[in-house]
């Protein structure tokens, strides 16, 4: 058992070592703008714009549920305008970035891992290297940059949608007026709430795309390896999202 534990520890350490090398190689590819520059917009569309519907869908229902949960939670002693405060704060600080990140971990991370894993197992990556293309500049950097840049944009849309749908639910399903909802929304609002959510979402985008690229390019075997890489990407991405969520809360929200 100790031997297994040791082997596991060594394996994890080795994984982090590979990941460190992978990140360093990616950063070294940043000056190669001519290679990744041509890929960035298609990647931004695929990772960002095409992910908007699922992100907005999740955000809309999150806003509705948040408003109803808030009204259910607050008792007669708490004024109902706190529904607005709860919807706004929760959406901006936590649920907007995290739920969107988890959803995109499945969609974007799995997509990247499957795509790059397939390229790896079909030796397309080897072919690119043969043609003197740096896979990090051609495949990894556009995806990572697109993810890092587009995740905050998607999360901004998600925040706005969740708050809007929270307002709709509150004013139609609850005995609360628009003025009361806005009063609660503005009551505890500070601009850093949005900044915090966007910083988190950018880090989520970076980590999800980086994990997808790393596991995809390190796929071994055939279709099974691709499937394994995809699954591990989703799992690791989800775990990393929660770890980063805690990290940002500790570093940025702690008084």
């Amino acid at each position, binding site marked *: 058992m100790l031997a297994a534990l040791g082997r596991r520890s060594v394996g994890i350490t080795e994984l982090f070592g590979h990941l460190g090398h992978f990140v360093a190689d990616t950063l070294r590819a940043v000056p190669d703008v001519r290679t990744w520059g041509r890929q960035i*917009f298609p990647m*931004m569309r695929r990772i*960002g714009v095409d992910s908007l519907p699922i992100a907005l869908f999740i955000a809309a229902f999150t806003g509705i549920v948040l408003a109803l949960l808030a009204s259910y939670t607050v008792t007669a002693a708490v004024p109902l305008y706190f529904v607005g405060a709860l919807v706004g704060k929760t959406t901006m600080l936590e649920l907007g970035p995290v739920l969107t990140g988890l959803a995109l971990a499945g969609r974007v991370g799995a997509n990247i891992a499957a795509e790059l894993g397939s390229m790896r197992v079909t030796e397309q990556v080897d072919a690119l290297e043969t043609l003197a293309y740096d896979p990090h500049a051609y495949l990894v950097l556009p995806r990572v940059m697109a993810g890092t840049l587009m995740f905050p944009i998607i999360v901004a849309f998600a925040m*706005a949608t969740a708050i809007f749908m929270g307002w709709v639910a509150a004013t139609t399903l609850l005995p609360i007026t628009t003025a009361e909802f806005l009063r609660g*929304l*503005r009551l505890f609002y500070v601009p850093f709430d949005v900044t915090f959510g966007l910083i988190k979402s950018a880090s989520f985008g970076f980590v999800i795309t980086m994990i997808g690229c790393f596991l995809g390019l390190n796929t071994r075997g055939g279709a099974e390896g691709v499937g394994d890489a995809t699954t591990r990407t989703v799992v690791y991405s989800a775990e990393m999202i929660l770890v980063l969520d805690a990290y940002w809360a500790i570093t940025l929200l702690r008084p």
Partner: protein
Amino acid sequence: MKRADEVLVGVVVLIGIALAVVGSIWLSQVRLGASDIRHEARFRSVGLLQVGNPVLLRGVKIGRVESVTLGRNDWVMVGLRLKGTQKLPERTVAIIFSATLFGDWAVQLLDRHDLPNDPDVRRQVQEAALNAGAVWPGAALPDVGQLTQQAGRIAGDLATIAGRVQEAFDSSSAEKLRGAFTDISRLSKVLANMASQQQQVLTRIGGNLDTGTASLARFATAMERTAHRADSATDKAQIQHILSSADTVGVALRATATDLRSLVGAARSQQESFVRIVARFDSVMGRVNAGEGTLGRLSRDTTLYTEAVATVRQMRLLLADVQANPRRYFQFSVF
């Protein structure tokens, strides 16, 4: 395809950035381009005041808290962003208070004359105003937590008192208390009897009062009637008649006064005559007293008195003899 990607991504990115920026500005209630004014106030403590909390003037929101920072000499500096159109009090003081039970804090701007009658608040303001310059002095009202703590301490004290009462209330105390209750019951009966008697007395007094009140009412009615009569007697014709009578009386009085004056004049002359007579009588009497003249000598010489008495006695004897022997003295003949 590539150009379409760029356009689409650009649109989404721009909208996303606009959503984040405009939404943040809207929620922060920052008025871009407005002539906002920034003021600074200092406090010893700001409770749970946060950036974004409202600033009120007479209960109306006129701005928001822009910053809360620690300053020199243990002051907390609070930046306030206010609408530039507001007329502020001459000697502005910032008071921080808990607006609701749920951490909803606010800053109220007051004139220094309108401070709450709280010695602690006044002391805080006085301290903050020293060498403050352009910085507004400020004070924080006690928040709900402090009040709750105070209430908790009071509740603790009550619990201690209750515990001590419970310790003191043993079986002997219960017996004594029972005895005391019996005494109180007896005393209550006595008091009830006394109250009953007093009530009877009061009832009698009430009856008398009723009678007196009725008499007073009758008296008042009579007075009212008299007043009516007096009132009716003072109508216009009667008053004229009274005035004319009064004129007549006046004339008569004037004539009487004239008569009286003449009488007084006559009396005065009679008085003078009387004074003269008295003076003469006085001089006569003086001479009599001095034994001068016939009367004087008579008044002082007892011989005359003695002779007169003897004469009277002789006269009585003579009269008696005449009555007894009339023929000795009188001769009666017809021819």
